């Protein structure tokens, strides 16, 4: 037993991990995972397939557990690191191969930093309006406003049935929730205790959509101890036009359900959104948003367009889409905060130099055919 704990044994085991044959055995598994995950996207959608195959430590194929993308990439990354630190041939003629491995390692570390730190949101700004709010693509929440001030945000994961939301001057209990709801007509005999839109509509659970953005999430909730005619059951769901109004303790409350939102430490004002089209068609040749970053007294004008994002205070704003609403055109910007953003640039440059050197430093023997 003791010999397993000796430094030389550990050293030997570590070096074993850095050998080329480990990569040789690992890569087929990684390629199989890649192929299966790619094919699965056709039926599961990109997000679900990614969660099942690539962003998972274990991928379950029925009852069979297989190593997931995280596990395979983790071992691959470890192997690369050990190879680089302990088994690199530090000779002039092998510079290329050492650099190529280093480049791949930097890319992998970048991937890890991105997976751990990147936050992706979006913001919708109407032309002429300013907004600091960004929304999560996937997460939903219940928002409680008192006199138009947001006083409470309850994440969807905390909205389990029978859950009571405490510390409010009225009683709020969750009755039901659905990640993807079918909105159906409520039978008249079931409408007795329901208020507002709940009298006519009911939310039924249905399987999630391929892309989570397309899900319509919602909850059914009960309010008590509020103004008398407001006590009863309500529904709230994504995009519901009318918030639930509650008066209690001498204050007016509003309850809304939707995508989780947070505020940037500054605001973005949209001066103009432009969609350029090819003449005589609806096919866009480009989209752009003329914005002003409003950060205290600082007013910074900028243009965000396809392939030309705006970087400001660690956030990057991308032209993602647009919508034509009753109040005019609104630009939709993706907002990404990623501490690992520099790694791919660095890794690609190192790998490119490495591979070029490797080919250049190959033995110059003449190819004789």
């Amino acid at each position, binding site marked *: 037993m003791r010999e397993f704990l000796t430094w030389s044994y550990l050293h030997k085991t570590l070096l074993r991990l850095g*050998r*080329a*044959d480990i*990569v*040789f055995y690992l*890569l*087929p598994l*990684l*390629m199989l995972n*890649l*192929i299966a*995950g*790619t094919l699965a*996207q*056709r039926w599961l*959608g*990109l997000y679900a397939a*990614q969660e099942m195959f690539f962003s998972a430590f274990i991928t379950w194929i029925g009852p069979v557990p297989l190593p997931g993308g995280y596990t395979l990439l983790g071992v691959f990354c470890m192997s690369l690191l050990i190879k680089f630190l302990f088994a690199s041939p530090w000779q002039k003629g092998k510079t290329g191969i050492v650099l190529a491995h280093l480049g791949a390692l930097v*890319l992998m570390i*970048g*991937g890890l930093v*991105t997976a751990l730190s*990147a936050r*992706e949101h979006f913001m919708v700004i109407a032309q002429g309006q300013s907004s600091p709010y960004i929304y999560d693509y996937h997460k939903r929440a219940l928002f409680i406003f008192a006199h138009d001030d947001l006083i409470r945000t309850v994440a969807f994961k905390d909205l389990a049935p029978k859950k009571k939301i405490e510390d409010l001057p009225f009683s709020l209990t969750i009755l039901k929730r659905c990640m993807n709801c079918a909105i159906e007509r409520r039978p008249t005999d079931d409408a007795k205790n329901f208020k507002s839109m709940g009298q006519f509509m009911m939310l039924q659970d249905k399987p999630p959509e*391929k892309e989570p953005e397309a899900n319509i999430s919602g909850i059914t909730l009960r309010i008590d101890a509020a103004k008398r005619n407001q006590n009863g059951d309500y529904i709230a769901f994504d995009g519901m036009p009318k918030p639930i109004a509650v008066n209690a303790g001498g204050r007016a409350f509003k309850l809304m359900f939707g995508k989780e939102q947070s505020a940037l430490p500054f605001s973005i004002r949209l001066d103009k959104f432009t969609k350029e*089209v*090819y*003449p*005589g*068609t609806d*096919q*866009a*040749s*480009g*989209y752009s948003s003329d914005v002003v970053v409003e950060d205290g007294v600082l007013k910074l004008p900028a243009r965000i367009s*396809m*392939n*030309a*994002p705006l970087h400001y205070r660690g956030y*990057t704003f*991308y032209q993602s889409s647009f919508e034509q609403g009753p109040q005019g055109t609104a630009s939709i910007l*993706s907002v*990404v905060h*990623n501490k690992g*953003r520099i790694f*791919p*640039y660095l890794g*690609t440059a190192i*790998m*490119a130099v490495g*591979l*070029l050197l*490797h*080919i250049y430093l*190959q033995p110059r*023997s*003449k*190819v*004789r*055919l």
Partner: protein
Amino acid sequence: MRFLALLLALLILCHPARAAIQDTGDFGALPVLHEGRIKPMARFADIMVDRWAQGEQPDTQPLMLMAALLFNPAQAMEIPILGVRDKTLRLQLNLPEDQRLFSFQELEDILFNNRHKISEIIIKPEETRSDQENALLGLAANADELAQILRSFSLLLPLDIEWPQGFRKPKGDFITYRSAITLQPELEKSLKSIIRRKGENPENYNAREWTIATAAFALREIQLGGENSKLLRIIPGAWDRAGQDWFSPWALLREGHGGPQQADYLENFANMTAAWRQQDETAWHLATAAARGMIGAHPDMRMLGWRFDLERLYGATNLYPITILFYTLGALLPLMVRRGWLVGGLIAGGLALHVIALGTRIAILARPPVGTLYESLLFVALICVAIGGILSWRTRRFLPACVGSLSAALLLLVAPSLVQDGESLDTLSAVLNTHFWLTVHVLVITAGYGLCILAALVAHAVLWRRQPGLETLMHRLSLTALLLTAIGTALGGIWADQSWGRFWGWDPKENGALLIVLWIIWLQHGRMGLKLSARSYSAGIAFLNVVVALAWFGVNLLGVGLHSYGFITGIATALAVFCVLQSAVIFYLWRRKEPGYAA
């Protein structure tokens, strides 16, 4: 659509052909705004006829066919031009089994009777539609486009109606919608008065009232039919500045964009109509030349300049068949005669034509030639020949150039099947509309694909007969392919970071590119770690052909992800056959006892 035949047959005068117009004169050089670009009429005709005929060959040359459709629609409706290639669909529609091309007249009633079925298919999710449903939908769309073209100049065509007495007569030898348009309100007013007095049953009308009703009905029907005719955007909306929209004759009339220049320009088409219908070659040449002269001075045309003429030339002279011939002969000739100058000359000739054709595309589109799958095939073929040629020049041996030529010939043969909707000179989607990233990422990665194909073909040769020199060449090609595909993939990630906000998103196209890189890395590590025999290593390199085909085309068949501009349908069977055949060949070569290899 259904009343179009009746309408055209009843209302528009058919003239028997006299001496046929032999050539189309300047008609082919007139500009049309189509799918976001101004194109010569000759190219527009090629694209549309190819799209309608679904790869079948109508008897008439596309430009002459277009002229007939525009200027003599009543007769042109009888020309077989709409392709129905799906046998099951032909059976479903009760069409003759052995016929593939049908006239508009033959299909319009059938499509009208199936209109409810077509509406149901339209609202079905795309992934749930059967091949026949897609084919029916495509046929309906093609018939709709054809109907729009048939009606394009219906406002200029002579009408077979008697003008009622007591009304001001329209100017000109014939009554046309355009000449009668100012008199239409008066006619409508009279018709309303007749209906008020005598009701809607024409049997109660006297002869004059009948004539008024017929003329008013004819004008109304021509107007209703023409209002949806938007496809032939042949007249600029503004005559004093470039970059504005162009309009079809009917849209010009309806949307009120007409000015004096537009009216003069339209007059040329009226003259063309008369000349075509009379088959008067002199008048035809005069009218087309006048139109060309007039539009040539328009700011859009001045801005396009020589690129417009170049596109016409590109459409008229398809260099690819002769390029394929040169490449094929150059690749196969060394099997019969070993004359270096002849092989080199043929391959160099093919390469020169290939460069000219690709260069012409770059000049016409003013962008790198890798915006679509079709274009990437043309470029990869060029890379294969160029690298093969360089290697042959350095080693003084035929083999690399022949392998490069053969792969290029095969790629160029496959390329036309990837052209979607008849147009190979496409405009780019917004996200691709950046010259920098198209050049840097797509050129690098497609060059990597080219090297993979070359390495794979050399690997076939190595498996067939082992030679150390060939093995070294194969190994170096695979390393260079790794360099380009790895860097190309990483550059694609950087582009994605610039435009979508993430370096890697596990999108099928990204995964496909990564698969090629991982496959080559796996082979290299197997070779270094002595886990793969020389023969297995060569077989693995040969299998790159399959990996590249799946990553290049296969992932586009999935129809998911952000690379939606590359989605394609209809090549799954061909791709599967290629992969199975290629795998079988590699397996055979790998298993056979070739003396050069250790067991």
